[in-house]
């Protein structure tokens, strides 16, 4: 059992009356001859790492290798605790967690690359925030990771999730699409709605360049993880309200891939374009190396 695009995945889900997460779990068990228990335990371990990575920066002071980050999660969490946020409590928490995971990553801590290290804050950010908001069980969250995995798998197979290949739109774009789909399933959305939410998230970030200051996974990556998390939330919200997405998922992914390929290499992780090429960024570079 396998699927190579969203059309095949949706057909499978509709015929068998399965969710995206169930389809992805079955795919893993069939293709790798593994028991459900074994696959589940491994995903549970990934979720535990995500959870720890969202909370660690609230407890400890972490200093990034390049020195461009540190303490952002605490600042955001403080605003959430004080109850006077611009974003509302759920989004405030999600972005605090998302930026926190990037603090952990950039200080050589343990994270789950989902789908990459540079975009590792998006999925834990939204999943942990929604879990706490609605008091969801861990088991439900682990299930949702299979949904996110299905979306990420299709993007990786048919396009790319690498910033060096497709820019930030591919990297944080994919993470955001994965998170949007997972949120949809958690809130009772159908497989089609999950993919609509994913397409929406991907479309919203279309064209975003990858321009890391000093070539490090620090800035602007950290803030873009917060953006990816909030984009996932609004994409899921729009879809669940009944707003349809006009372009099907497979076509959206193809469009993203084409945009990525037409980006000059300066805007694909080489730190030679975008904000990485500004005079201030170059000055910061000298301080690091």
């Amino acid at each position: 059992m396998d699927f190579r695009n969203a059309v095949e995945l949706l057909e499978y889900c509709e015929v068998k009356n399965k969710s995206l997460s169930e389809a992805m779990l079955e795919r893993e068990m069939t293709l790798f001859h593994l028991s459900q228990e074994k696959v589940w335990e491994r995903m549970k371990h990934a979720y535990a790492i995500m959870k720890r990575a969202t909370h660690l920066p609230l407890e400890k002071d972490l200093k990034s290798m390049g020195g461009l980050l540190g303490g952002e999660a605490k600042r955001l969490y403080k605003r959430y605790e004080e109850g006077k946020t611009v974003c509302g409590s759920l989004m405030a928490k999600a972005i605090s967690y998302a930026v926190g995971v990037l603090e952990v990553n950039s200080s050589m801590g343990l994270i789950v690359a989902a789908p990459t290290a540079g975009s590792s804050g998006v999925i834990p950010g939204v999943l942990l925030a929604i879990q706490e908001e609605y008091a969801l069980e861990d088991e439900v969250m682990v299930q949702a990771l299979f949904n996110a995995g299905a979306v990420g798998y299709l993007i990786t197979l048919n396009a790319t999730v690498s910033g060096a290949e497709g820019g930030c739109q591919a990297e944080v774009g994919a993470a955001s699409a994965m998170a949007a789909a997972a949120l949809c399933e958690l809130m009772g959305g159908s497989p089609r709605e999950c993919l609509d939410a994913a397409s929406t998230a991907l479309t919203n970030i279309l064209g975003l360049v990858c321009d890391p200051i000093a070539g490090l996974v620090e800035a602007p990556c950290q803030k873009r993880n917060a953006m990816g998390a909030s984009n996932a939330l609004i994409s899921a919200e729009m879809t669940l309200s009944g707003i349809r997405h006009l372009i099907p998922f497979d076509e959206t992914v193809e469009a993203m891939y084409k945009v990525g390929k037409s980006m000059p290499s300066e805007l694909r992780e080489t730190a030679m374009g975008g904000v990485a090429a500004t005079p201030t960024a170059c000055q910061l570079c000298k301080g690091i190396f």
Partner: protein
Amino acid sequence: MKVMSVFDIIGPNMIGPSSSHTAGALRLARVMYKLAPQPIKEVTFVLYGSFAKTYKGHGTDKALVAGLLGMEEEDERIKEAFNYAREAGLYYRFEINDSKHYKHPNTVEIIVKGGKGEHISLTGASIGGGAIRVDKVNGIEVFFTGEYYTLFIIHQDKPGVVAHISQCLSKYEINIAYMRLYREQKGTIASTIIEADEPLTKEVLKAIEANPAIYNAKLIHL
């Protein structure tokens, strides 16, 4: 390309900050950890391209040392790898090579000296998402990724050796995915690399090494 798993997407679980510059670097060094006779006493890492430019900010140096100590991508001791190296009596150094003669921007050459003074070298690249590619072992151009259950065999280049290896594998019901043979000159030393679908046990290794034409057989699986 191997069939993609959900854990290639929700994963790998790794010490940051970069799958290519940290996790991939560590995996390259771990290949050397598996190839070299223990204990490794000395190592030189020669960094090329992007590795040479950004290794400090990515912790590439710590990841390389950690990999050579046998640590895995999830190991939270990686950050303190230099201390662990000192404890283990491993002397390490880094060299920057500015030449543009590399196949991939994230390339490293690892040269180790074992306990008995023997030298082994390996050149490889971190090709993205933590995946790696080994390009050279002891100066001979090779190719393997460590994704499969990999056997690296150094042997005499003479008739019957490859047949012996494949007989051993078939006896233990191991299906070969890929098999490649490399040699410098006819009749001297050759390297055979086997990539298999099934896990390779120590018994298989012993059976292969029983032939006097086999100098060395190592298991590499990342």
